């Protein structure tokens, strides 16, 4: 009994749960910065920079703006962090020990929306004009990218025989090869990559946090540990979001744990590389352009993908 509980705690907190995701996410974020630096012929930060930045935020002072809605302002980062922590624990569990994956994709989708929602709420509660602009942009962007992601989820669900359980999706792919190989799976991964880009607020979809226009937008009033919690949840998402996409679309059949870790590391590297290439060859899009890109280009593409999936392609 005690063994079982301590084992569960270990798997949720250390490996492959929160600590592991956190470490990989930090490395991924650094890799993205380093690649951007190399694209611009710069040297770039050392590999531990993400963790140092976070540690530094936790030793700084917290300032709360006068006139802010204090409670909401303070709890928003905490809720956002706990939702992402839960999300990463469930996804990592699901991928590495398929038996434990009881969660379905609807729960995961719901957990994914919470951080963005509380970023918006935190910005609204901070009583800053630029934060309001950022929050409004994030809201509009959310309408765009969540829709596209739901389409790619539908494709995955259709392809794995109508099951919404993470473990079933994994098992289906382990038996029949990954979804990525088919035409509709390829469309789904395209949509998902843009979803990651928009969700993590990476150029060209960083208009909610645009440093040069609206001075960090939604994050403008946050400082010290509160900002640290937001950044920590982003660090977690840096790994668990690509891992979720890999789980949905690109499971490589492999039984042993080292093989799984190797494949995940490889696929993760490829995702980060694609993300930073998109980041470095595009300027920041205007909110209108981003919306029309998601709604009038990616969504029809996704609907074609659904039709293909229904045909079994």
């Amino acid at each position, binding site marked *: 009994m005690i063994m079982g509980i301590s084992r569960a705690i270990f798997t949720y907190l250390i490996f492959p749960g929160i600590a592991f995701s956190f470490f990989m996410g930090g490395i991924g974020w650094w890799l993205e910065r380093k690649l951007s630096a190399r694209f611009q012929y*710069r040297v*770039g930060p050392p590999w531990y*920079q993400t963790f140092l930045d976070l540690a530094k935020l936790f030793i700084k*002072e917290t*300032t709360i703006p006068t006139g802010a809605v204090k409670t909401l302002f303070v709890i928003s980062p905490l809720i956002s962090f706990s939702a992402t922590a839960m999300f990463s624990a469930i996804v990592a569990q699901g991928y590495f020990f398929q038996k434990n994956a009881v969660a379905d994709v609807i729960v995961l989708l719901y957990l994914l929306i919470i951080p963005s929602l509380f970023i918006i709420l935190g910005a609204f509660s901070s009583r800053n004009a630029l934060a309001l602009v950022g929050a409004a942009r994030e809201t509009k962007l959310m309408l765009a990218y969540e829709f596209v992601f739901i389409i790619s989820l539908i494709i995955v669900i259709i392809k794995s025989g109508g099951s919404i359980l993470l473990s079933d999706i994994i098992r289906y792919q382990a038996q029949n090869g990954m979804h990525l190989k088919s035409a509709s799976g390829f469309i789904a991964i395209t949509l998902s990559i843009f979803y990651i880009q928009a969700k993590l607020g990476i150029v060209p979809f960083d208009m909610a946090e645009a440093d040069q226009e609206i001075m960090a937008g939604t994050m403008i009033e946050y*400082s010290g540990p509160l900002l640290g919690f937001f950044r920590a949840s982003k660090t977690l998402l840096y790994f668990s979001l690509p891992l979720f996409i890999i789980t949905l679309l690109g499971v490589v059949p492999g039984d042993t744990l080292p093989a799984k870790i190797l494949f995940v590391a490889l696929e993760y590297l490829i995702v980060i590389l694609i993300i930073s290439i998109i980041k470095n060859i595009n300027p920041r899009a205007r909110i209108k352009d981003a919306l029309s890109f998601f709604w009038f280009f990616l969504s029809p593409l996704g609907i074609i993908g659904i039709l293909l999936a229904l045909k079994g392609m």
Partner: protein
Amino acid sequence: MGLKEKILTKSLWVFHLSVGSCNNCDIEILDCLTPRFDIERLGMQLIGSVRHADVILVTGALNKKSTPILKNIYAQAPKPCFVVAIGTCPCSRHMFKDSYNTISALDEVMPVDLYIPGCPPKPEAIIAGLAKLIKKVTRK
């Protein structure tokens, strides 16, 4: 040397504040981020909001209009936060010393941790100055 200072100085986020410069110093600050100088390798990052700042880089000569704004912004920054005067203007009021509008140098208004004189200072000088700031903080 404490762990706290070590972490702080390895991840300095700089906030760039012009209180009436001729724009030359600002361009030199941006030069520090270009491929040749790249201060991101030292963990420094130019950020947009003063709430995230560890270092405030002040350029330009203080005048009657910008002094209250500067004080306000300094009060908003979470401590510990260092103030760096970039260029001769904030260090000593430079050629605007006798102007009716520039009433004080920067260090008469707020504590200054580092002065980098020059009109404008070279990027090398700015980086050398920041290295001195790091040394000063970690030795304390």
